[in-house]
């Protein structure tokens, strides 16, 4: 097989994991833009989404579409609920208090799933039914195609929603100036809830894609993608929606290519090294300055 084909396949690997990072990073960046907090429990919403899919499929024997909807619904309700119970009472508290609460919620979710499902990884078959395709010697797996299509649709519709709808304008207004938005008659609480709902629904989709890719569930499965996506959000400029998408995809590509052509051991160091470099040169992240796009 030609070296060129190999490089192209590694690029596709990078795009696939990168688009999942982007999907998760959107949740971090939207919540940061609007509530000015880092929601560290976001990674664990992915885990809940993955387990919800498993419960829907293996325990309630729902059809795949039903299980996907169930998973998205559970995560949306959970995300909004967490905001109401854990973050809303602290809205005027110090940022540090909110941050620690978020870490607490993260541990709570992990421990609950440990208690309910145990620590042994649970196998769960993919719901993606079709085999991959082969173009000129390059094979692309079914799950890769599905991941790329689903994430593109999600990102495109989110961009449309934020820029073209009334609710989207409300979200942009709240992220710009909470007080002024309230004076203009925007319901800030509702808008924040909506942001958490969208972010958590995207996390659920990421969780479902994760299960289809790795076909195994454990209580800590959201931790690593969560951290990587957070890095992606910071890389792209936290608070910026296109920044999160760009950051996620760049991160996925760097990770895949450095693993393949430099060193597996060093790939994480390279990823974080590039983050440090970007932040040194451009402290607000790659697209962090475009305030108009803030959510």
């Amino acid at each position, binding site marked *: *097989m030609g*070296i060129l*084909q*190999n490089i192209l*396949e*590694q690029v596709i*690997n990078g795009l*696939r*994991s990168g688009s999942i990072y982007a999907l998760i990073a959107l949740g971090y960046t939207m919540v940061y833009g609007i509530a000015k907090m880092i929601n560290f429990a976001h990674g664990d919403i992915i885990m809940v989404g993955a387990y919800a899919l498993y419960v829907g499929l293996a325990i309630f024997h729902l059809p795949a579409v039903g299980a996907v909807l169930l998973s998205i619904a559970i995560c949306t309700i959970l995300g909004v609920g967490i905001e109401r119970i854990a973050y809303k009472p602290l809205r005027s508290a110090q940022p540090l208090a909110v941050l620690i609460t978020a870490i607490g919620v993260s541990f709570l979710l992990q421990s609950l799933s440990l*208690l309910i499902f145990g620590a042994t*990884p649970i*196998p*769960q*078959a*993919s719901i993606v039914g079709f085999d*991959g395709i*082969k173009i000129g010697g390059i*094979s692309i*797996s*079914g*799950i*890769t195609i599905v991941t790329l299509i689903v994430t593109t649709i999600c990102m495109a519709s989110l961009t449309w929603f934020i820029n073209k709808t009334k609710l989207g304008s409300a979200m942009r207004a709240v992220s710009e100036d909470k007080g002024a938005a309230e004076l203009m008659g925007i319901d800030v609480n509702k808008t924040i809830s909506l942001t958490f709902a969208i972010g958590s629904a995207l996390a659920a989709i990421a969780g479902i894609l994760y299960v289809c*890719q*790795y*076909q*195994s569930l454990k209580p800590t*499965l959201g931790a*690593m993608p969560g951290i990587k996506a957070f890095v992606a959000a910071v890389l792209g400029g936290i608070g910026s929606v296109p920044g999160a998408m760009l950051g996620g995809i760049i991160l996925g590509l760097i*990770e*895949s290519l450095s*693993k*393949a052509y430099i060193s*597996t*051991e060093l790939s994480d160091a390279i990823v974080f090294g590039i983050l440090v470099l970007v932040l040194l040169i451009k402290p607000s992240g790659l697209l962090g300055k475009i305030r108009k796009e803030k959510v």
Partner: protein
Amino acid sequence: MKKVKKIMALGLAATLTFASMTGCSSKSDTNSGSNSDSGTASGTSDETFVIGGIGPLTGDAASYGISVKQGAEIAVKEINEAGGVKVGDKTMQLELKFEDDQATADKAVTAYNTLMDGGMNVLLGCVTTGSCLAVVDLAKEDNILMLTPSGSAAEITKNDNVFRLCFTDPLQGETMAEHMITDLHYKNIAVIYKNSDEYSTGVYEAFAAKVAELGGTITTAEAFADGEDFNTQLTSIKGTDAEAIFAPIYYNDAAHVVTQAADLSITLPFFGSDGWDGILDTVTDKATVEGATFLSPFFSGEETAADFVANYEKAYNTTPDQFAADGYDGVYVFKSALEQAKTTESADLISAMTQIKVDGLTGTGISFSATGEPQKAAKFIKIENGEYAAAK
């Protein structure tokens, strides 16, 4: 929140109750086990030979110790029922005394001392590497014959009174290299291994050295430290002209590797180390491991193991694993050494160890070198039609 607390409290209470119950039952098990053994002993013969055992019966690694103990109990029962062991002109009955060390070094020392006070003649132990290392020097001072069923670290057998029944990590790598190159005529082999794990690295390094010696080529050795994404490594392997993939890793990682390989339409055959045992329960699609071959000391589906498996299942309601087979074979090794030495003197038993040949569940014609390592043929298990089968 109140409800959550209540649920947590209930859960905690349940766990505690369960823990204390299992604690009790395993204790009474040990007692009743040794009582009945000594009962038969005094009834039918003149003397009893005491085999001490040390391994985790509680704690995280409990399943290993329990398996060894139960396997050894089956062997002791079989031998005693068949009339005991002929030692010179006497016939002796065997007795197994097994102590729990929770896989910790300090408890292993306590267990060793308890067993010595209880008149232990030989030691079947320890089950775990750390405990083995904690007692090897004590066993040397007492000059007692020690046989570890499953401790795989090289330093365990440094003293001349210590022998090992299981494969060492390097031996697994060498055996697999010989199988793949000499028996199956592969020339180019790719490797994927976990470089944060001693076992995986140890097997890989020995494998690579042996492959080079036999004239084969490692096309690429892809490492990983952690995580479940192997797409990059597998894509790299796909880019080489490898004819087969060797993956000396545990079954959880192996399940990810084979699933993702199938996604990338890699059709190369997989080969694994003994860590692959259990993979069929972990993969979601058994077709992804079809045709994979791995090394194992013991295969419960084998004809020669049928009696043992039936007895074991009858006694303990579960299928024996390789640790149970190690425990069983350990007792038969002692029997053979006793028959060879014709005395129960430790020094004579130790020198008899290098002269015996034992047909066991984990290998036929097992013999021991003076350095304490076993010489036995490996078993290759191949996955055929979604089942484990003995590879030819």
